[in-house]
């Protein structure tokens, strides 16, 4: 894992002191809320429905045991005993007191963490493949590039007041596990003629106007990675729609200009920037890389004893192939049947930290699907690991099943939401688990957002659900056919919306259509793509 140098630590420590002073001045009435709000948002502190909410950055979702223990301690000491892992691979706390915020940030800084740029119109936490550095199918570990981008984007003076928030994802395999093309900038590390470089996708996003990012350059040499990123941002910063919040994301600019014209302007700016010499020396990337070097893998067992069917099911569903054949990546499900997606108690966080220390070289990853990965687990240790997870309600075997639901906090916590997401997720999870239907469905990604901002990624769900406010009553729109993987697609709305019970039944209905129509080996999404919307619509509305 990357470790702060003296500059990283000095910047974070200085910010803690600065924000502690700002919060104190707010408490003393020397700053009004209008003056204070942009300052607290720069430090991840929102005012939500019930209290202040603090979002803590977890760069590219990677953290170690000491960091997870501190996150658990914060949940216990300053919050109400739990935290919520988010679709940006971060964690947020729902019950923070303003008077504690400075102390919390100081605790975070001691383990090289912070909440900087987890809100506001700036470059947010860089996200990446949660199996980075472990996946058998990756070209290289994408995290050194994500770390370089993190350093470039942290406190970047030119990009602290962008037209709107800005999200970047970096992957290094053809399998997309980071929703890369649904980001403002999606970067895929690629190889061309034996040289490693970056392929740039710009102008994707979800929200009220979902767009899939077009590829604007197939190959950027590594010694121009930052310069090209800067050019993409500069064109956006100059021409992004500051006049209209709802048209201010880069996807709108790219769409309105057209990808070709946007690319032309980026290339022009890029040529100009190359003359300025802003690119960090490759030596910086080489300095970063050793922090992500492989741990000392050992040869060992290649298979598990499958005599316990519950264990065997968990292995089949919740482990992922590793580049070393004696290891796997093990997914800790934060989606127990009927549970709140992404929530973990302080006790569970402490346990995950301990298990990472014991079984995964002291490393964890937060997934954008709101689960946690132990990236490097010996196959020989899997049963012992599963036994401990299962005892703590962390061993649900449902990765990529219908019960592995992404759900935003919704109206239970979020001031922007129009409808509740979590109760619906809980009921779907229970209905499909208890009847055994989940087992028949195979891979089926269901995602729920409580408003059009789409924090629950509903546009990209094989089945997506959007909560809306219909004359003061919660109503839910159903969409089908979305994907955030390498076959990125935006779901299409089936038709009129439903109340909560109605949308539960609708999910039942569309999965019945799938089971009736599927051909060998087809996932729900494959069947939908083959037969189209009509049979689903007919079953729902006729």
């Amino acid at each position: 894992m990357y470790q702060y140098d003296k500059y990283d630590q000095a910047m974070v420590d200085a910010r803690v002191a600065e924000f502690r002073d700002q919060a104190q001045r707010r408490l003393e009435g020397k700053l009004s809320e209008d003056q204070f709000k942009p300052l607290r948002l720069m430090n991840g502190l929102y005012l939500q429905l019930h209290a202040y909410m603090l979002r803590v950055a977890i760069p590219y979702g990677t953290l170690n045991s000491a960091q997870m223990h501190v996150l658990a301690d914060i949940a216990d000491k300053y919050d109400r005993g739990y935290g919520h892992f988010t679709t940006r691979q971060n964690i947020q706390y729902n019950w923070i007191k303003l008077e504690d915020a400075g102390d919390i940030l100081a605790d975070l800084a001691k383990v090289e963490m912070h909440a900087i740029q987890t809100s506001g119109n700036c470059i947010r936490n860089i996200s990446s493949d949660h199996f980075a550095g472990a996946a058998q199918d990756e070209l290289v570990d994408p995290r050194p590039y994500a770390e370089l981008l993190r350093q470039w984007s942290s406190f970047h003076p030119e990009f602290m007041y962008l037209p709107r928030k800005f999200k970047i994802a970096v992957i290094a395999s053809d399998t997309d596990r980071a929703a890369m093309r649904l980001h403002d900038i999606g970067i895929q590390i690629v190889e061309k003629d034996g040289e490693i470089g970056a392929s740039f996708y710009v102008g994707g996003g979800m929200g009220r106007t979902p767009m899939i990012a077009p590829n604007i350059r197939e190959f950027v040499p590594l010694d121009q990675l930052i310069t090209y990123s800067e050019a993409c941002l500069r064109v956006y910063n100059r021409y992004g729609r500051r006049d209209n919040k709802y048209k201010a994301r880069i996807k709108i600019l790219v769409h309105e200009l057209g990808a070709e014209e946007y690319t032309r302007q980026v290339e022009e700016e890029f040529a100009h920037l190359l003359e300025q010499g802003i690119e960090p020396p490759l030596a910086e990337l080489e300095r970063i890389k050793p922090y992500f070097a492989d741990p000392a893998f050992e040869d060992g067992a290649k298979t598990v004893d499958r005599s316990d069917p519950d264990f065997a099911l968990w292995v089949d569903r919740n482990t992922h192939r590793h580049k070393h054949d004696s290891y796997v990546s093990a997914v800790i499900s934060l989606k127990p049947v009927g549970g709140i997606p992404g929530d973990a108690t302080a006790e569970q966080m402490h346990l995950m930290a301990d298990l990472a220390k014991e079984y995964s070289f002291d490393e964890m990853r937060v997934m954008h699907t709101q689960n946690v990965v132990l990236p490097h687990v010996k196959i020989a240790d899997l049963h012992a690991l599963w036994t401990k997870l299962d005892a703590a309600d962390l061993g649900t075997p449902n990765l990529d099943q219908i019960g592995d639901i992404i759900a935003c906090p919704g109206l239970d916590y979020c001031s922007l939401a129009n409808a509740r997401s979590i109760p619906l997720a809980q009921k779907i999870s229970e209905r499909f688990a208890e009847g055994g239907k989940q087992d028949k469905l195979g891979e089926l990604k269901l995602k729920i957002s409580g408003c059009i901002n789409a924090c629950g990624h509903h546009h990209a769900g094989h089945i997506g659900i959007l909560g809306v406010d219909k004359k003061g009553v919660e109503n839910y729109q159903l969409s089908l056919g979305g994907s955030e993987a390498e076959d990125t697609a935006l779901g299409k709305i089936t038709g009129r919306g439903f109340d909560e019970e109605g949308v539960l039944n609708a999910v039942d209905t569309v999965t019945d259509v799938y089971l009736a129509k599927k051909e060998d080996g087809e996932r729900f999404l494959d069947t939908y793509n083959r037969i189209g919307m009509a049979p689903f619509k007919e079953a729902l509305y006729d």
Partner: protein
Amino acid sequence: MIILTGNDLKTGAVVWWDGVSWSAHVDNAVDVGDQAAEIMAREESSRRVNVPYSIEATKDENGVRPAHIKDRVRALGPTVRPDLTLKPADPDIGEWVI
């Protein structure tokens, strides 16, 4: 009736104007009639409340009920965590929100 709500400056907790101060319980909220703007300006400037706003509500023998579901969630707490609501002993209290 028109009632006032906001968040406590220090804790961020949801509070309701009870005619004298700010209460955690919506049932203590009073009708402010046409005094909303004046009270909010005074209370915000004295730092007793953060971002206050006025809402419509009804009152009957069961208490005060905000007109919009969002404010009913604010009044109660998260429906998915009854233990963290203001009425943790009532497992069905979430139904009040709907």
